[in-house]
């Protein structure tokens, strides 16, 4: 299952994470389902954090390169 989380874009992963939290908080799912939901939530959160860290790195690299060029 974590395989398809890797393929999700940032907004998709984030929106799905919001949905997972909503369902867990609403309760009503079986124990088995709750465990699976929680595991998926963790995978989605990790994917989002990974994407954001990558975006920051790209931005900083581009700015460093450009400020080097305009000198």
């Amino acid at each position, binding site marked *: 299952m974590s395989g398809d989380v890797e393929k999700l874009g*940032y907004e998709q992963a*984030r929106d799905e*994470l*919001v949905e997972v*939290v909503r369902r*867990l*908080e609403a309760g009503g799912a079986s*124990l088995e389902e*709750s*465990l699976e939901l*929680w595991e998926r*939530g*963790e995978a989605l*959160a990790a994917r*989002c*954090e990974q994407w*954001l860290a990558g*975006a*920051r790195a790209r*931005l900083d690299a581009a*700015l460093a390169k*450009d400020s080097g060029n*305009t000198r």
Partner: protein
Amino acid sequence: MNRPTPVVLPPTAGATTAEHPWPVRMLTAKLTEYVAKAPALWVEGQVVQLTRRPGQGTCYLTLRDTDVDLSFSVTLAVRVLDALPAPLTDGARVVVHARPQLFPRRGSLHLAADDLRPVGVGELLARIEHLRRLLAAEGLFAAERKRPLPFLPRVVGLVCGRASAAERDVVENARRRWPAVRFDIRPVAVQGPTAVTEVVEALHRLDAEPEVDVIVVARGGGSLEDLLPFSNEALLRAVAACRTPVVSAIGHEVDSPLLDLVADVRASTPTDAGKRIVPDVAEELAGVAQARRRAAAALRARLDREASGLAGLRARPVLADPHRLLVAHGDQVVALRERARSALRSALARAADDVGHLRERVAALSPAATLARGYAIVQSADGAIVRDPAAVPGGELLRLRLAKGDLAAWAEGPWADGPWNEADDDESDAEEEELP
């Protein structure tokens, strides 16, 4: 009595005497006749004091000599005034076609004019004004025809006097703002008889150059006559026909040749033109740098927002503390087990009670008490209880269950039939009677 002699009016003015004068009316009539003989003439002067009242067909002006302080009153039909190409200003030089006329009531002399025309500079301005109206009517000055100047021209075409101050002003001011600007300069005569031809030729050449993105026509200040070429019809039409935008930079702020109206942009001076044709490099670079800073800041802010949103989600108990899920279930299981156990305990207690009750009943029904009173239960070898002595043949093993234990005995047969019976008749009868 003095009878007046019949009045004899002298025929000529020279013939009058103090005793034989003319009456005023005679003088008026004679002078009117005399003045009427003077022909109409053209006279030049300056207009001072023009008076016209609404509704009147005649207006009045004073025509003064240009050099000395001598003047005449002039009357003129209003329609002549209205037919002029430009309104008369005070001090305008004019020529007037008029006849001298005597105004009989007052005996004053004035000029009755039937034509009036401006001359000199006035005439020139009038001609310019006429052309302005003509071209305006054709729509050459219309705002829709004005082309916008390019933000950053590849090459700036410049039509100006050779090595003139105007050239220097345009070039220096442009280079100060954008040092890399390129010029294509065409020196021309900017006044005199050849100016119009040369300027038009330069315009055509520059317009044909593909890299020239804007053309500036510039010259310094001068008199009205000096600037005349830039109100010339041929030159103006050439500018109107240019596909490249044209900037007019003629003379000083107050000068307004017609080129200003036809050009796409009017600069008040050559210096002003230099500033308008190129942007300010320093400003533009600062603007670009600021835009980049803002873009980077906006992106960072977005990333920060997303990261804190994510942290918020992560901090939610359902994700951060998943043990809660299990704890809830665990508690439920414990509670259920407790209930089960407690139910079991109750059931056991009830069952124990039941057994206790049953036991008592069994005990109550049990023969032990009877046995304790001295009775015995007799069982044959097969376990059957013996009630009838006849049922037990002699020699059979009997089991006697007494209160304190079991006794084995051999049956001899029914007591009534035995030999013992005779010997102890009295005792046995007595014993029999004792038996309850």
